[in-house]
């Protein structure tokens, strides 16, 4: 650790208000809602932000692709410029160095453009070139085979990009869908989360692992991956070496499931809404799950026998993951902190449990996701389906969807670029067994609930 005590104390002294500009979650809310409001202003004036929200179109030959890029070169440069300005402001406020971020983000943008374009090749599905998976594999190869200097990590902000993308995703989901499907999502996710947590926790205890480590592992497998593990670690006062164990196991299994869940869903010809729900129930981290859900949704309507739409996969995934699981991390942390104080031994500290952590640990980007959904639902309300498809969708929803896809691509690529397998902590055999048992139960139970119990529900969700 190179930071001196003096520097650290300065950072330690942060008040509640500073959260608004020191946390990535809030920045995802500000930027996401800002983009939605700007898009609405343009829409009201009979215009659109579609000029700046440029994205590669379908192509079949390299000359077509070259023509696209030469025709839209200024738009791509403008988009890069806007992202750079906005994101540099964010990293400056949260305390990172713009000098490292700017070249790193340009690198991310260039690679993302190539991946986005590759995904729009008309033969892409034939060769399984799903953009999220291509981004992940390319990132993994670059970081683990070629290697990159450490300072370049400044631009690989997986969580920030995915949170921004989720806020923008909210703008493309009707709030009525959240109200309609939210309770089922919460019910399904709660059942799986509780069972998975208890399986991991008691398996870990049977194997003789520390209670706090068992809780940190359980939360990682049951709630929202690394974010849940780190939140619960702080709540139960885990030993310093506990979080890296959970991080290694979550990353290892999450990357396997990114490929495995879409592959099995495809083999079983699950409708996209059902596949998305299963991924939302059984993947751990938001970014990993979105990569899997988006890549499965991309298989719809391509003569593979998979019914539904790409948007259904994203919608059911997001409902289960964000509404059913992520939102409750504060409650999990509070309950486990309470148990650690009242039931488990406490030798090192003498604090009480603060009920405020339910809010302090709440993933604030969810607020942006919900507000964005309400805003666009109100905007769209009153339009006929014909008007929606002819006017609202191309001038308002499509550009937001394009920017969302950019944000997701930055995130998927960054997962690969930041995953250095040799740097992950050695988890040890006992934590590995406990976590793996939980993964198996989670995947099976997730399948039963998503496909057999609520399958009819998830296959029929309406996303417009």
């Amino acid at each position, binding site marked *: 650790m190179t930071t001196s005590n003096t520097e650290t104390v300065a950072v330690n002294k942060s008040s509640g208000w500073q959260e608004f500009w020191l946390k990535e979650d809030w920045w995802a809310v500000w930027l996401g809602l800002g983009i939605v409001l700007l898009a609405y202003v343009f829409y009201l004036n009979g215009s659109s932000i579609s000029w700046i929200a440029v994205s590669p179109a379908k192509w079949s030959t390299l000359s077509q692709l070259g023509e696209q890029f030469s025709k839209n070169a200024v738009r791509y440069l403008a988009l890069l410029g806007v992202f750079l300005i906005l994101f540099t402001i964010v990293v400056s406020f949260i305390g990172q160095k713009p000098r490292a971020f700017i070249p790193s983000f340009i690198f991310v943008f260039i690679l993302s453009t190539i991946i986005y374009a590759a995904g729009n090749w008309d033969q892409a599905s034939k060769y399984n070139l799903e953009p999220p998976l291509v981004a992940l594999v390319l990132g993994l190869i670059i970081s683990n085979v070629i290697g990159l200097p450490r300072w370049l990590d400044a631009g690989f902000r997986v969580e920030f990009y995915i949170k921004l993308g989720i806020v923008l995703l909210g703008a493309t989901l009707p709030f009525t869908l959240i109200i309609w499907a939210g309770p089922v999502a919460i019910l399904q996710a709660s059942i799986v989360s509780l069972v998975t947590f208890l399986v991991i926790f008691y398996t870990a205890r049977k194997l003789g692992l520390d209670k706090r480590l068992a809780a940190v592992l359980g939360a990682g497998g049951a709630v929202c991956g690394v974010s849940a593990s780190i939140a619960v670690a702080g709540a139960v006062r885990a030993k310093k070496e506990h979080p890296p164990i959970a991080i290694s196991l979550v990353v290892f299994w999450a990357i396997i499931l990114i490929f495995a869940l879409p592959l099995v869903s495809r083999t079983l010809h699950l409708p996209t809404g059902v596949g998305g729900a299963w991924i939302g129930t059984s993947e751990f981290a938001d970014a990993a799950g979105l990569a899997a859900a988006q890549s499965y949704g991309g298989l719809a309507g391509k003569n593979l026998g998979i019914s539904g739409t790409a948007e259904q996969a994203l919608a059911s995934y997001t409902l289960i993951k964000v509404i059913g699981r992520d939102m409750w991390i504060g409650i999990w942390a509070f309950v486990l902190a309470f148990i650690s104080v*009242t039931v488990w031994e406490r030798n090192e500290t003498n604090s009480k449990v603060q009920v405020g952590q339910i809010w302090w640990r709440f993933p604030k980007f969810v607020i942006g996701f919900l507000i964005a959904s309400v805003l666009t639902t109100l905007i769209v309300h009153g339009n006929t389906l014909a008007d929606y498809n002819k006017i609202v969708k191309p001038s308002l929803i499509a550009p937001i969807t394009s920017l969302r896809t950019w944000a997701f691509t930055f995130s998927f690529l960054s997962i690969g670029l930041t995953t250095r397998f040799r740097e992950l902590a050695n988890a040890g055999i006992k934590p590995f067994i406990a976590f793996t048992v939980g993964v198996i139960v989670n995947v099976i139970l997730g399948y039963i609930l998503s496909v057999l119990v609520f399958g009819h529900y998830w296959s029929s969700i309406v996303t417009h």
Partner: protein
Amino acid sequence: MNIFNSIQLSSSGPVCRDCTYFQNDPAVIEDAYRGLTVMSSGFASVRDQDGLCNYHQLYLSARDSCPAFAPAASEINQEQAR
């Protein structure tokens, strides 16, 4: 045991945030926990103001407290100013 005795609305008295052994700079946490940024972040809301205690070797909340509390340099300066 009254369970409500174990719950409080806000912390009172010295807390880890003001302790010399406590570090919660997000960059330090990301550096200490390699792999954290793969699927989470040191700057995420869920992490609140948690940090590392170099006395007990724990990862805990900035709002926690313990008998080994030692005021950080800035705290001592503030006390002297008062």
